[in-house]
């Protein structure tokens, strides 16, 4: 049985040689397997780390610190002539009321600098809060009410524990004195953390405690709606033509190669296109959902076309033959028979494309979505920003309070993306068909 007569060596069965080296080979096998497993675990732990980091940073943004103060709605300040005229009430100096309340609460503070520190404990948005209360109920005038006032972001951070009270004073944004006041209020139960509705109802702001994602969400919503309106019909139409009707020639080959390449073009290049063509040449207004949607449509089209073609491919030819056989025109065959069967696949591709569009940032920076826009956009041509760009802008802000708001905005964005992808997966599962 031996065929390897090595010179000088006694004949040996091959299996013995094999068995001799087996241990070493298995050690290598285990090592290789271990490396593979570690790669998977490492990859999975990155997922875990990313999400844990975002959640750890962002969860506290869903609550907001409020300070309870007895506010005297001084008639002399609010309504000097007693007319209860809403215009007068709207313009009154509400900040005065808050300052008075603070001074009453901490009568020992007289020094100018200290007074300023004291005033800065309450958010600059609090006067508006009071105004809205008075306008809703003018009977408050002249009374003294315990009001929960929005705290400034530094105080918010201190209460949430993001500012370490153990640090030396000069390394802290909130000084010892203010910490003392906060501790006093805390002891009296006058500091509370409540659900942060502002985060979901406000547009952005320079003040972290007043900044919200509503504007960006609406901007994303308008942009996505338009993108869907443009991209879905065009994508499906192009897919039908290329897959079902196009003759096989150079032109269609070129289109095909083109689509595959476009899918891999860096997104920022689409931004350059939007800037140079849509804004400069066609005069589409900057910073609007319209121009964003045009750019995102071109960006997501390849995804939708490729997915739609795959869906069309999976419809067996027998169905087409059957329809053509009973006298349907080619277009009727498509619309009545092929499209309904391919639709789940097309929708899945579209949802994935829309998820891409929702998360896209870079090209939108080029076309002015980066502008600081406080108002919540009201239409397709009103200036707006979108959620990912808002995240980018906030991430750049130095305030500690913006870190948690950025993370929270990311959580909202991810929640939408997960929802969309889950829908796509379920859709695929539900309609997956084997022919």
């Amino acid at each position, binding site marked *: 049985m031996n065929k390897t007569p090595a010179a000088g060596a006694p004949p040996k069965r091959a299996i013995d040689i*094999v068995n001799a080296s087996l241990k070493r080979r*298995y050690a290598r*096998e285990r090592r290789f*397997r271990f490396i*593979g*497993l*570690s*790669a*998977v675990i*490492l*990859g*999975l732990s*990155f*997922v875990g780390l990313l999400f844990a980091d*975002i959640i750890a940073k962002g969860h506290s943004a869903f609550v907001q610190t409020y300070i309870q103060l007895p506010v005297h709605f001084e008639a002399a300040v609010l309504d000097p002539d007693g007319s209860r005229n809403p215009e007068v009430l709207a313009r009154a100096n509400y900040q005065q009321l808050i300052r008075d309340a603070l001074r009453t609460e901490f009568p020992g503070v007289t020094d100018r600098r200290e007074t300023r520190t004291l005033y800065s404990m309450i958010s600059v948005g609090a006067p508006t809060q009071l105004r809205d209360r008075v306008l809703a109920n003018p009977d408050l005038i002249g009374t003294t009410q315990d009001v929960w006032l929005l705290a400034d972001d530094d105080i918010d951070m201190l209460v949430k524990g993001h500012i370490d009270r153990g640090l030396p004073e000069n390394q802290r944004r909130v000084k010892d004195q203010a910490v003392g006041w906060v501790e006093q209020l805390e002891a009296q139960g006058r500091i509370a953390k409540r659900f942060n509705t502002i985060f979901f109802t406000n547009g952005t702001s320079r003040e972290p405690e007043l900044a919200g994602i509503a504007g960006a969400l609406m901007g994303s919503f308008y942009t996505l709606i338009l993108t869907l309106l443009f991209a879905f019909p*065009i994508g499906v*139409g*192009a897919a*039908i*033509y*290329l897959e079902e*009707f*196009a003759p096989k020639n150079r032109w269609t080959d*070129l*289109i095909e*190669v*083109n689509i595959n*390449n*476009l899918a*891999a*073009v*860096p997104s*920022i*290049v689409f931004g*350059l*296109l939007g*800037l*140079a*063509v849509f804004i*400069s040449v*066609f*005069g589409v207004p900057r910073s609007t959902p319209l121009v964003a949607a045009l750019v995102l449509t*071109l960006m997501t*089209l390849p995804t939708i076309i490729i997915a739609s073609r795959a869906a069309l491919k999976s419809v067996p030819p027998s169905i087409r033959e059957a329809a053509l056989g009973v006298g349907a*025109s080619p*277009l009727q065959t498509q619309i009545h028979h092929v499209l309904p069967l391919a639709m789940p696949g097309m929708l899945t591709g579209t949802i994935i494309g829309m*998820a891409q569009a929702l*998360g896209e*940032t*870079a090209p939108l920076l*080029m076309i002015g979505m980066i502008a600081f826009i406080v108002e919540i956009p009201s239409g397709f041509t009103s200036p707006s920003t979108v959620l*990912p*760009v808002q995240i*980018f802008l906030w*991430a750049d802000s130095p305030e500690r309070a913006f*870190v948690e708001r*950025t993370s929270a905005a*990311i959580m909202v*964005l991810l929640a939408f993306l997960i929802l969309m*992808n889950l829908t796509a997966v379920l859709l695929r599962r539900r309609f997956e068909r084997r022919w």
Partner: protein
Amino acid sequence: MHTSTLLILVLAFMSLAYYVGRKRAISTAGGVTRINTLHSLPVYYGLYAALWAGLPALLLMGLWAGFQDDILVALVKSELPATMLDGLSPGAASLLVNDIKNLASGAIVSRTPTPEMQLAADRYNLYNQFAVWAMWLAVSALALGGMAFAWLRTQPKMRARNRVESIFMAILVIFSSIAILTTLGIVLSVLFESMRFFQEVSPLEFFFGTLWSPQTALRADQIGASGAFGAVPLFTGTLMVSAIAMFVAVPIGLMSAIYLSEYAPRKVRAWAKPTLEVLAGVPTVVYGFFAALTVAPFIRELGMSMGLNVASESALAAGLVMGIMIIPFVSSLSEDVINAVPQAMRDGSYALGATQSETIRRVIIPAALPGIVGGILLAVSRAIGETMIVVMAAGLAANLTANPLESVTTVTVQIVTLLTGDQEFDSAKTMAAFALGLTLFVVTLTLNVIALHIVRKYREQYE
């Protein structure tokens, strides 16, 4: 009098035309009982009428909306006293027009309005109003005219279905050409601006210069007053960040693809694969945030504790996070090509007494190598074009360095910075962004074409 209201009106005309066209077809045929004498189903006559009512009107509307403003501006400008436009550069003239428009719409104006400007603004408003009315009239007339035309043409012998279908087919052809138009648009827009850039800055300086300082100085005596556009530090920065990313992504991605497709029990694979692919669905801005606020400080601390001087915006942090982002990309592409290796190869190897890892390392990987290389090239192209991570986590300073702990800048970062700051449109600074865009586009396109070609050849080999 909003344009969208007009759009709705046209849509209403279209549905009316559909209804009328259908009715007309049935009545010309001689009633419901005789519709079999029609060439096509009544529906197609309806669609035929609707298309006639809608398409020309919509086309007119689009053209009108596109050109109305240019015409109005030209009109207003021609009526301005000649003294106001004398000696104005095109930029200043367009600024003036802008102010007139702002004045007209009641927005904030950058200068105190003169009576002439006020007059022009009033005229602009007047013309505008007139133009809007004219558009409404013209569009509605065209829609009604189209409807009437279709009504006249409707008779049993007319081949409505064929006509409608050929229109639809034409629309499909247009849709499928959009991909080509997009590419053309990209090429033209970056090429045009780049040409202008290269008229001011020599390509030699751009591609081989080592000093990048695009800030045009405010004072003449500032350093780099004219701006320096040597892009080499950008290229090396891009390459370094991409290389770090690939260093992370390729081994992890490839090994997890191998483990998941060859070793993992089905259950593990069923949840590990989609979980890993979550990484591909996370928006890049999230990675940027993660890189800038978590990874970069961590690396900095780590480096400091080892006595290394790490920049707070190190290439390493950006590259690492970019690598994480690319892992699922590499792993799913690799898995595809590994699965495409025929089972017969594995059988042949096992039948010779090979262990699983020997089969993978010595047969499957070599067999899948072209496909894997193609996938990696695609990943490289993605790394080079990735923007948000580097914008947020890499620096702005164009350092020519090989030290990954230092801060570098990349092509994409510079494009964003050049185009998002306060900008005057025709400056060399903004045009430089397009030249960088052109470079980026050409490089990624080349990589993609090569990669897709390799992958396709590879697929064909085993089909």
